């Protein structure tokens, strides 16, 4: 049996058949779930650690520094060392805090980002579940994280944390709209919410080219809104270290703090990969319809390279935002959403619908 290294469907089927042949279907399903869970956990940890390292290096280069370079060559083991340090730190318990919620909050945050990851297609056939409502699922699950942030801020018995949590609540409730509507623009074009189909439809051109003007606008809006939703960069009001010291996770230490930290980076990875999938074709190589030779050459580049390349570029863009801009104020943040992003988005959807109706897209 041969595998196409660019197509994981047959590989999955082979594992599935192999497991079914040696055990009952129920156990096979459970085993598969366990395998997927472990793979995702590993993936989560590795990507999280790498992103922390990447962020530190990227910002260092933007600031004329060299960044971490002491642990391992070019400092690549720096985050692992940090992680070990965080594991060994004492878990501080705050007097008069709500113990249960205080302990649960980091898990809610990390589970939310973990769940959303399951719908993302990394390559053909390489995804945990292929929902037919994939986008809806991702939007729904990823916004659960704010519950964890609110709980963390409220249960800490700290005023800074509370202010940070409340800011975060207001922020995510409003920016959720823009994220949803900008994705809706592409759903109008694609006519489906299933990630695999969305990617497949971009075989002859990515949506950002197919939908031209409204798609580009939707992409920019999505980028801004999703940066806000991940509590990063000019929108990091929930943390706002110069105002609220560390915002909602002021009182967290050790591994619980690491969970928040990791979840922030995984959320960034998640929104970047969704942006890459929906607007830039996910793992789909760059195709120009009509140029058969060019398309064949592009097909030789593995889909995982395409996928991670696009994601990495969008992550780089988000890092560029964070390390360039000053932070917004809370009222300006809401003004930006309700006065600018939302109206533009609504008009943009109408425009896109009109475009689809008139077949003006490619």
């Amino acid at each position: 049996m041969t595998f196409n290294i660019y197509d994981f469907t047959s590989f999955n089927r082979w594992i599935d058949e192999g497991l079914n042949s040696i055990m009952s279907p129920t156990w096979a399903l459970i085993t598969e779930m366990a395998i997927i869970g472990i793979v995702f956990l590993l993936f989560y940890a590795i990507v999280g650690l790498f992103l922390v390292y990447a962020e530190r290096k990227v910002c260092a280069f933007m600031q004329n520094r060299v960044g971490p370079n002491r642990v391992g060559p070019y400092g690549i083991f720096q985050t692992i060392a940090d992680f070990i340090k965080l594991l060994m730190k004492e878990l501080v318990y705050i007097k008069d805090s709500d113990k249960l919620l205080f302990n649960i909050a980091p898990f809610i945050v990390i589970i939310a980002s973990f769940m959303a990851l399951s719908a993302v297609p990394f390559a053909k056939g390489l995804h945990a579940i292929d929902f037919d409502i994939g986008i809806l699922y991702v939007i729904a699950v990823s916004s659960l994280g704010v519950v964890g942030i609110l709980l963390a801020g409220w249960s800490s018995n700290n005023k800074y944390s509370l202010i940070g949590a409340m800011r975060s609540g207001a922020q995510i409730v409003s920016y959720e709209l823009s994220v949803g509507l900008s994705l809706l623009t592409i759903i109008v074009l694609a006519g489906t919410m299933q990630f695999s189909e969305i990617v497949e439809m971009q075989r002859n051109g990515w949506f950002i080219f197919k939908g031209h003007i409204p798609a580009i606008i939707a992409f920019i809006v999505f980028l801004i809104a999703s940066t806000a939703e991940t509590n990063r960069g000019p929108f990091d009001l929930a943390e706002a270290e110069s105002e609220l010291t560390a915002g909602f996770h002021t009182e967290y230490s050790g591994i619980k703090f690491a969970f928040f930290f990791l979840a922030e980076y995984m959320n960034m990875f998640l929104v970047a990969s969704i942006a890459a999938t929906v607007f830039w074709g996910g793992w789909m190589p760059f195709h120009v319809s009509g140029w058969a030779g060019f398309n064949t050459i592009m097909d030789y580049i593995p889909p995982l390279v395409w996928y991670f390349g696009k994601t990495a570029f969008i992550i780089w863009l988000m890092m560029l935002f964070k390390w360039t801009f000053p932070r917004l104020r809370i009222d300006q943040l809401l003004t930006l959403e309700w006065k600018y992003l939302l109206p533009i988005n609504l008009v943009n959807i109408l425009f896109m619908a009109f475009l689809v109706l008139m077949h003006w897209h490619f």
Partner: protein
Amino acid sequence: MKEIINLPVSKIEEEEYHINMGPQHPSTHGVLRLLVSLQGEIVKSLKPHCGYIHRGIEKMCEKDTYPQVIHLTDRMDYLSAHINNHAVCLLVEKALEIEVPERVKYIRTIMDELTRIQSHQLWWSSFGMDLGGLTCFFYGLRDREMILDIWEETTGSRFLQSYNCPGGVMQDIHPNFQKKVHAFIKTFKKKIKDYDRILSGNVIFENRSQGVGILSKEDAISYGVTGPSGRGSGWSCDIRKIEPYSMYGQVHFNEVLRYECDTYSRYMVRMQEMHESMNIIEQLIDNIPAGDHSAKMKAVIKLPAGEYFQRVESARGELDVYVVSDGNKTPYRMKFRTPSFTNLGVLDHISRGMKIADLVAIGASLDLVIPDIDR
């Protein structure tokens, strides 16, 4: 819970709570504690609590001779250490009626302006950082390094130079001094454009700073807010123009004034002052006359009995030294009127009704240096 529900809405809104910003807080730039009364995110009032690094410099000065006082003034406003030294030296020279050589005046003025530039660079860095733009911090410090190198070569120290002494300067300038200052000005004129591109023109920054922390001219005068903060309110309070000392009477420079009275105007005043300072240095650097680097001084400096007062323009406002002398070699009473101390007094007034984020921006725009407050 039931009580809260039964309260009238206005009562709930009136409920205030207090948070302590500091003594350990990233945006207070040191150990300043602000007890802030908040209503939601709105600042209702705030009380500054200072003294966490009060070292009793005025008391120590009463035990020290005048040359020994110099090294203490370094440690007041460490970002304009040279200007602080200059103030004491000017006072001693005025009391003794000593005319210092021209060369000393040139060197002191150039050093003062270098001090002003590096202080504003560090202020710019921390201003950007307080508003959340962390990259600004590194750009500012990167360019400041050049000035510190110039100082290190001439004075031997990077930060607390103690370079002035009554009657002159400790040692003559290094032969590389002029060359390096020229190189710095050339480089910095390019780099300061980056400052404008990354922060001044940025739409987020403009929204964060415009209309925030309005300080009218009358209030600025009444509260004694001097320096760039006062000039941002349109108050022409530059001691270099009012009571010129050293070379300031003979160089041409504009007193930067802006009339918007908000955080943005205080920001722009400092940005333009860096240009003006470079302008002053350019006028002086090539014309340093030959001569001695110090006037002839007696081994023991005794000020004639009397009271002396010296005003200079430090990087963040008017610095005054008030000395009561009883004719001994140590001052009987030495008082420093430090700019940060008086500027802190206005913080409560201008940040009322603003948000916490604005309070951070206002505090940064006043450019407080905590050892300068506490002395």
